[in-house]
């Protein structure tokens, strides 16, 4: 999360609190810098700048302006960190409809490369206002993914 935030802000790295005395920093190439005010060492993590953010939203216009209803989770952060965004949306709506409540438009078309209308595109996960997590479908996936053949059949069936 911190690495994506650094990318979203356009800075090369960002300090993170804690981790001192744990093995975690060595696993992910955390490094330390000296706080220029206090002289204390602090861990920093590098910016993570993905090429693409792939997001599913409730509503977008054809240009890629989009709004997320309910918790955005980390999606707005991922959109800001990545070079470009690919959206799937429950519904494509008119720009005028978005413009009536512009404060809800969390993703602007500036970095959106593609938008696809894909109702049900978050299943078996949830999409607030449309559907909840589908527990039976999650269990069906887990069962199918136990073998390569099962997974291939699952991917063909879930189009």
């Amino acid at each position, binding site marked *: *999360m*911190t*690495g*994506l935030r650094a990318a979203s802000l356009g800075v090369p790295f960002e300090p*993170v609190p*804690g*981790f001192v005395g744990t093995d*975690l920093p060595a*696993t*992910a*190439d*955390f490094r330390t810098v000296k706080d220029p005010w206090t002289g204390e060492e602090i861990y920093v*993590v590098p910016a*993570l700048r*993905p090429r693409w953010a*792939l*997001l*599913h*939203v409730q509503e977008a216009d054809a240009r890629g302006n989009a709004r*997320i209803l309910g*918790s955005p*989770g*980390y*999606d707005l*952060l*991922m959109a800001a*960190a990545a070079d470009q965004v*690919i959206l*799937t949306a429950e519904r494509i709506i008119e720009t005028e409809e978005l413009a009536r409540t512009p404060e809800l438009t969390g993703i602007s078309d500036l970095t959106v490369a593609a938008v*696809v209308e*894909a109702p*049900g*595109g*978050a*299943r*078996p*996960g*949830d*999409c*607030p206002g449309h559907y909840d*997590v589908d*527990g039976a479908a*999650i*269990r069906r*996936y*887990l069962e199918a*993914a*136990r073998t390569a053949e099962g*997974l291939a059949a699952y*991917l*063909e069936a*879930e*189009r």
Partner: protein
Amino acid sequence: MLHRIPAALVRELCRQGRRGLRLSKPSPSYDLDLLCAAGCLAEVDAGVASLESAFGGALPGYRRAVEAGLVRVREFS
């Protein structure tokens, strides 16, 4: 975790047989597991990664890929 995941898009990446991808996501779940199970991923940057507790919590496809050395994991904050 299972909240507005781009599931249909991820399934299409799997069907297209994409390889060598790097996933950077704070709390992935089904998407991470599926990309691992389908052999699409080479690297993962993630914090917590899990299905929700109702489904046993763990991500078996992710676990298998990491244990087999197929995926390099960096756990950032």
